[in-house]
């Protein structure tokens, strides 16, 4: 495969990561919590959707299609995000940021172990929600899920950008981030900002799971947490408080990963994870705040 088509494939791969990365940045910017639970929050909803696709929704004969399973993942992801915010994260608002990070770790662990208990360790088959057509872009064969991921990433990024810069609520979000106490005194509903961040973040995670899992054909517990590392790496590389940074960082991770993987023998696919490690380590040493992050992050 030529370098150019590798890059195109990499961009499509990175676009899927960027959905989780944007969720991570949204939550970091909104609540100062670095969440590593987004992979599993998305996976939990998709597990339910895919399981129902095979077994039928409990109590009915309805077998949702793969597309509907994806929608279920988005809806459950959003709900789960809200539940986590209300029950786990809100009591931690005034605690050190490390506590928040550990709490999200607990959420990821709990969800993955529950998946293991409910659905077993056998992979659940995850067909593409948008059909199996393969598009060819600049000689790169792109399955429909990759194209969908790319389109979704662009829509989400532009939508959030407009929302956060052009609306009153977006302004409130930014006020709440810079100083929750003052924002509260000025009449900003800080709690609804937190709920927005976790709700939208959860929905994006569900979306990411729906387009990421089909690339591997199936879904297993902890797998999405592994993928979400690529997104976390993207967010850290791009700058934890910048939505555009999250996207640029994720695309970079996707491209580097794909190019490295295509150019070493296929049996050694662990090289991609080494490339990600080197990329994160290098970025944090050379430019700790990330490509587009502000100094407040480091």
């Amino acid at each position, binding site marked *: 495969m030529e370098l150019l088509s590798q890059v195109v494939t990499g961009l499509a791969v990175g676009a899927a990561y960027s959905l989780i990365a944007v969720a991570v940045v949204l939550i970091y910017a909104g609540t100062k919590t*670095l969440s590593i639970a987004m992979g599993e929050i998305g996976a939990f909803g998709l597990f339910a959707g895919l399981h129902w696709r095979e077994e039928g929704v409990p109590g009915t004969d309805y077998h949702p299609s793969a597309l509907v399973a994806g929608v279920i993942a988005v809806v459950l992801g959003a709900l789960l995000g809200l539940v986590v915010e209300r029950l786990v994260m809100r009591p931690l608002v005034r605690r050190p940021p490390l506590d928040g990070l550990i*709490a999200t770790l*607990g959420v990821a662990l709990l969800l993955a172990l529950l998946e293991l208990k409910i659905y077993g360790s056998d992979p659940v088959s995850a067909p593409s929600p948008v059909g199996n057509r393969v598009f060819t872009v600049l000689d790169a064969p792109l399955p429909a899920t990759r194209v969908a991921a790319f389109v979704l990433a662009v829509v989400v990024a532009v939508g959030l950008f407009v929302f956060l810069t052009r609306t009153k609520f977006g302004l409130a979000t930014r006020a709440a981030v810079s100083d929750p106490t003052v924002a509260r005194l000025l009449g900003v509903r800080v709690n609804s900002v937190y709920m927005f961040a976790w709700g939208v973040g959860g929905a994006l995670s569900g979306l990411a799971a729906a387009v990421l899992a089909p690339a591997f054909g199936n879904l297993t517990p902890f797998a999405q947490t*592994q993928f979400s590392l690529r997104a976390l*790496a993207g967010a850290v590389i791009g700058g*934890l408080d910048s939505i555009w940074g999250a996207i640029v960082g994720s695309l970079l991770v996707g491209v580097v990963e794909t190019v490295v993987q295509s150019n070493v023998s296929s049996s050694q696919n662990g090289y991609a*994870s080494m490339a*990600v*490690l080197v990329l994160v380590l290098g970025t*944090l040493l050379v430019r700790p705040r990330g490509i587009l992050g502000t100094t407040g992050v480091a």
Partner: protein
Amino acid sequence: MSRELFAPRARPPLVPTVFGILVAAVVLLGPLLLKPGKVSTLVTAIAIAITALGLDLLVGTTGQLSLAHAALLGVGTFSAIGLGGRGIPWPAAFLGAIAITAAVSALIGLPSLRIRGLQVAITALAFQIFADSYLFQQSAVKDNTLTFAAPSFFDPAQHGFRRLYYFGLVLLVLTVLLLRRIGATRAGRSFVAVRDVEQRAVAFGVRPGPTKLLAYALSGAIAGLGGALIAFKEGTVNDAGTFNLQASLLLVAIVVIGGARSAVGICSAAFFVRALPNLIPAGYSLPVLGDVATTIPIVFAALLIVSIVGNPEGTGGLLRRARTGIEGLFSPPAKRPSPRPRPTDAVAAAAQAADLRRVSRPLTERLPVPALLVARNATVQYGGVRALSEVSLEVRRGEIVGLIGANGAGKSTFFNAVSGLAPVTGSIRYRDRELVGADPARRTRAGIARTFQDMGLIRADTVRQNLLLAQGWITRYPASAGILGLGSTIADERELRRRADLALELFGLDHLAGETLGDLPYGTMRICEIEAAVSTGPDLLLLDEASAGLTPDEAHALGDRFLALRDELGLTLVVIEHHVPLIARVCDYAYCLESGELIAEGAPEQVTAQPRVVESFLGKGSLRETASAR
């Protein structure tokens, strides 16, 4: 010191002692009753507990999160097999595994040299996944042809796992003792300082980056020991499942549920999640929850969330509270010392404490210069805000200088400029040497000590620990020597303790040395911070709002101490103070700032009488009214 030695020893409380003996009996005798396969599980659980204790050094003590400790455990295991399997004697293989794992762990922590944020955790996560998907798949790492054969004394095939179990127990106890030892050295105190007061700790001579790196390395070394134990027991490892991401997350859960810095809590949590599922007979199931072995980890994950939200001190905290509760049932509650300063003769105490000034400094910095501190056009600019604007002032040796002004006038900014925590232009000379550009630790060594408006000490530590931390720059023994107790370490530590006790007596707080700082009233905490500053043997003491939170009587007593510090110890003081009577009583000279600019200077009575000062600082009411309102 001496008073503590001769105090009548309290009878050890009965119930906790009995409880402790029971636990020890179960730990020591339990394996004799179990089948070899079950004892094998316990050995693994011990290795996990050791690794968790290492992780706690990072998470609980230093405030850094590692999501790669299972991978580090794997690095230790495979290193030990790689070395021991090639015929290297087992003790050397253990040490090799420890060294290699420490190096890898330090590598993961490398970004902590540059950043304070939590992103370092992502590096560790990236390493964990790299180890899962690549490192532990390599035949060079996971070499199935190599076997780390334990010497025949430990050989499980001949003796079962009991001897290995007791060997593991010894390693576990050694790890706990090592961690205790680290906690009593300069390095251990620096770890806590990095966790709680990272930016300010530089003034105590703590360098945050290298300190964090050292914590990563030590934590990795302990994980390496755990790994070597697993290698010793297994001989060869085919399944890397103990070292995967899930195992890493469980390790963090063990530390949090067990409770930071609680060995008992962490060991219990490790036993609960790693040994219990295998000790319960297979197929044993509960109503609703189903199979017990798969339910325990879920309960554990839920407990992690509950712990972090509702019980941040973990099991260790619960045990401590239970212990105090039980002790209370059997004996009348011990009389808690009054949390306030004891009234002592300030002059006599100061005479005793004259020793504190005996710290070694470069000769050039001991030259007598009449003006100890001279600022010329000192300016501090944050973006568009000028927090300090062309301030020129002078502090003479042996004076108490008051710095007054309304909130936001730039008083604390001036202190930051002098102590090296604010970007300053212009000139600030101390003993005729330029401070601008010098790093904060050097300023401390030169004899400048300060307190902070909002406390720069560690609330979770005891008063004495904080005083030892503050004196960090006085002894500079290397961390390794400190941990092993080599060289001058023990004598140095004893000297620091003596100095801390002198400083405590000086302010009448010697009866509170063992109390947790955060449990004391605000005013007492502030005095502790002054003591911490005085214990470093400074020439120039910068005190930010020293009398805040004190009763009028205590503020008056504090004034006596200031005078004693000046007259008996020969210190020079700059005090930011709102309490006008105190300024009037103790200050030799006063400066008034407004919006970053100097607006008045002179004798305290003159300055506080100037109309502009009255308007800016005291408000439009009369001096007396304002003073009594405070």
